[in-house]
């Protein structure tokens, strides 16, 4: 029977099966960042003047800011002049109208990743999923646009929404995460290229799951996507994003901003399966994932849930948050983060209770192996008007081996005496006795590890839409692959 050390050794050898590169001709800007680059991006996308001004304002603000250092992560700072801020497969100045116009190499890439872009492939399925595929800086395909439009749902690349629904974009863009919110959000506001735009009209329940699949392909480029989801009164939407990148020795930057707006009685479920390239076993290469995700529960009785399965990236800096502004609004955060080898993750959430009777739930599960370090960092703030607000937080960490670490930084600010907070935290090691018990019942060691880890994550996986729970399970298995000595 392998010991924990052996398991750990095998974990370090895990394979990253999305690590291939697509050989495709790209239109890529030379590395560097200045106002001309921003003007160039804006011109490429044929943007209105207001958006260019908005970008430039963000850029000028960014120049005055410093990269944050408070997170418990250690990395070589990015040289922002050495990366390219725009890369698009040719020819793709605007999204293609049908799949026939999509480069077959791109279709093949998504096929290989298991993301089918052909609508008929879904017809046999019980439930449909609409996909927006973002490749480097542009959206290359969006499926089921027509069917969604019949229901009144808008689902398109944000670059297209700027032209087709300018009043919606102008009203909501930056209304949750302002341009100068933080260093990475400011950078994103200046140079963002593509991402998804979703609008669910009043009273509409989105007829299918929506998902966006982000792929970084080009060398030395950053991906700066921007996603904006607006759920109008009484509407409902479930959304998933997935991410992968090729294996490269250089670190690549991914600085995204996601803004969610939920009006009265609206509900948004946002799930992420993040599998960016994590770097090799020595910590060479991998994605720097510096992401700002925030939901504004603007309306009374609105609900937002963030569910994330984070297995990739060299560095993760990410705190999907909820501003519970509306009375009786509800925010939830469910997270599973797996770090192996030299991966570092500083992740958690912020629940800002402003309205009365607001409720939030935080369930965070961290799994560390190898020399990986992981931190849960969470803020629960009860504002002075947040009468009877409630929060429940549970943070569990599972350690594999003795060189990894798990840390918990819960911050609590309460300005209203009627608020209730509960916090539970546990740290455990995967037990040799649990492994032996499973093996004695006939499971191989690898199956036993998978079963124990999946059991540990069950509370969170239960929150994923059925279609994606399977994907999450598979990812976990890949992450822990070869764990038998």
């Amino acid at each position, binding site marked *: 029977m392998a010991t924990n050390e052996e398991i750990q050794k095998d974990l370090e050898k895990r394979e990253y099966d999305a690590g291939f590169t697509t050989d495709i001709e790209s239109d890529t800007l030379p590395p560097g960042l200045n106002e001309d680059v921003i003007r160039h991006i804006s011109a490429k996308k044929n943007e209105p003047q207001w958006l260019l001004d908005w970008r430039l304002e963000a850029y000028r603000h960014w120049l005055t800011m410093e990269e944050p250092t408070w997170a418990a992560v250690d990395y070589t700072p990015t040289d922002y002049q050495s990366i390219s801020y725009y890369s698009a497969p040719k020819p793709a100045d605007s999204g293609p109208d049908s799949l026939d116009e999509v480069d077959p190499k791109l279709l093949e890439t998504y096929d290989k990743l298991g993301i089918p872009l052909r609508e008929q492939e879904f017809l046999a399925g019980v439930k449909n999923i609409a996909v927006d595929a973002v490749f480097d800086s542009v959206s290359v395909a969006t499926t089921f646009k027509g069917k969604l439009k019949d229901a009144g749902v808008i689902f398109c690349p944000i670059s297209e929404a700027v032209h087709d629904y300018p009043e919606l974009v102008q009203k909501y863009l930056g209304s949750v995460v302002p341009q100068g919110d933080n260093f990475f959000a400011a950078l994103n506001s200046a140079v963002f290229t593509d991402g998804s735009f979703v609008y669910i009209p009043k009273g509409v329940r989105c007829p299918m799951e929506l998902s966006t699949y982000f792929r970084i392909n080009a060398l030395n480029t950053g991906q700066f996507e921007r996603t904006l989801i607006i759920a109008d009164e009484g509407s409902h939407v479930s959304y998933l994003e997935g991410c992968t990148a090729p294996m490269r020795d250089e670190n690549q930057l991914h600085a995204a901003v996601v803004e969610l707006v939920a009006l009265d009685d609206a509900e948004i479920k946002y799930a992420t399966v993040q599998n960016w390239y994590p770097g090799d076993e020595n910590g060479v290469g991998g994605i720097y994932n510096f992401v700002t995700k925030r939901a504004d529960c603007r309306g009374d009785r609105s609900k937002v849930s963030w569910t994330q399965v984070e297995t990739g990236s060299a560095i993760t800096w990410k705190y999907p948050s909820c501003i519970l502004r509306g009375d009786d609004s509800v925010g939830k955060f469910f997270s599973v983060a797996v770090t192996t080898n030299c991966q570092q993750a500083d992740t958690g959430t912020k629940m800002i209770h402003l309205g009365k009777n607001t409720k939030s739930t935080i369930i965070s599960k961290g799994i560390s192996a190898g020399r990986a370090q992981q931190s849960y960092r969470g803020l629960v703030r009860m504002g002075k008007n947040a009468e009877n607000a409630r929060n429940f937080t549970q943070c569990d960490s599972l350690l594999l081996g003795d060189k990894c670490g798990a840390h918990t930084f819960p911050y609590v600010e309460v300005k209203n005496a009627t608020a209730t907070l509960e916090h539970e935290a546990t740290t455990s090691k995967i037990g040799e006795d649990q492994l*032996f018990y499973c*093996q*004695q019942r006939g499971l191989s060691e690898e199956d036993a590890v998978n079963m124990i880890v999946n*059991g540990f994550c069950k509370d969170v996986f239960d929150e994923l839409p059925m279609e994606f729970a399977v994907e999450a399970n598979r990812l976990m298995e890949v992450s822990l692959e070869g764990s038998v000595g």
Partner: protein
Amino acid sequence: MIEIKDLHVSVEGKKILKGLNLTINAGEVHAIMGPNGAGKSTLSNVIAGRDGYEITGGSITYKGDDLLEMSPEERAWAGVFLAFQYPVEIPGVNNTYLLKAGVNAKRKHQGLEELDAFDFMKTVKEKAALVELDPSFLSRSVNEGFSGGEKKRNEIFQMAVLEPSLALLDETDSGLDIDALRIVAGGVNKLRSPDRAIVMITHYQRLLDYIEPDFVHVLADGVIQKTGDKSLALELEEHGYDWVKENK
């Protein structure tokens, strides 16, 4: 079925088993008794293949194969079952799901088709009735929040489903009240069969009133000191373990 010859085992440099010999045939029920620290649990753990035991000498032959060369799961596939003294809790892992994975891993190894969910549930419900295990336990996480008695019942239930050739019951009676003991013992008795061997490790003669053994062994100082029939257990109860050492 299993032949243990001159077995020497150390734990962290300390000699626990010192030349133990034991032969068990199919259809037999053996009881191993002995004082605390005699090496009873060491013996069952070594047979099941737990890590942390250093085999410094001797051999164990199981169904003609060298058992010590096999991984714990290979031993399970070959029909070795250990009912744990302290069954471990596995949060979030469904009791039935674990068992199904175990059964199907064994079937796969034997070249049989995996059982489908329907057939499996049918078997499981029958076997649960054997130890009067409430069906709600089937869908709960493995041993999580089970009482001591429920954990032990769950072990015998798993034994019933896995249908082992050699079942080792490590202090299955400890922590059971009289009613639970009767139920668990009743379950074990129903599982007695001509092609199955059962080894019970216990401190108390009480268990043997319910499950009648063919042989009783006294294990002390790392070797089998004395072997007899069930009357040996009664003598032990009367005279204590020192009497055995004096009357080898």
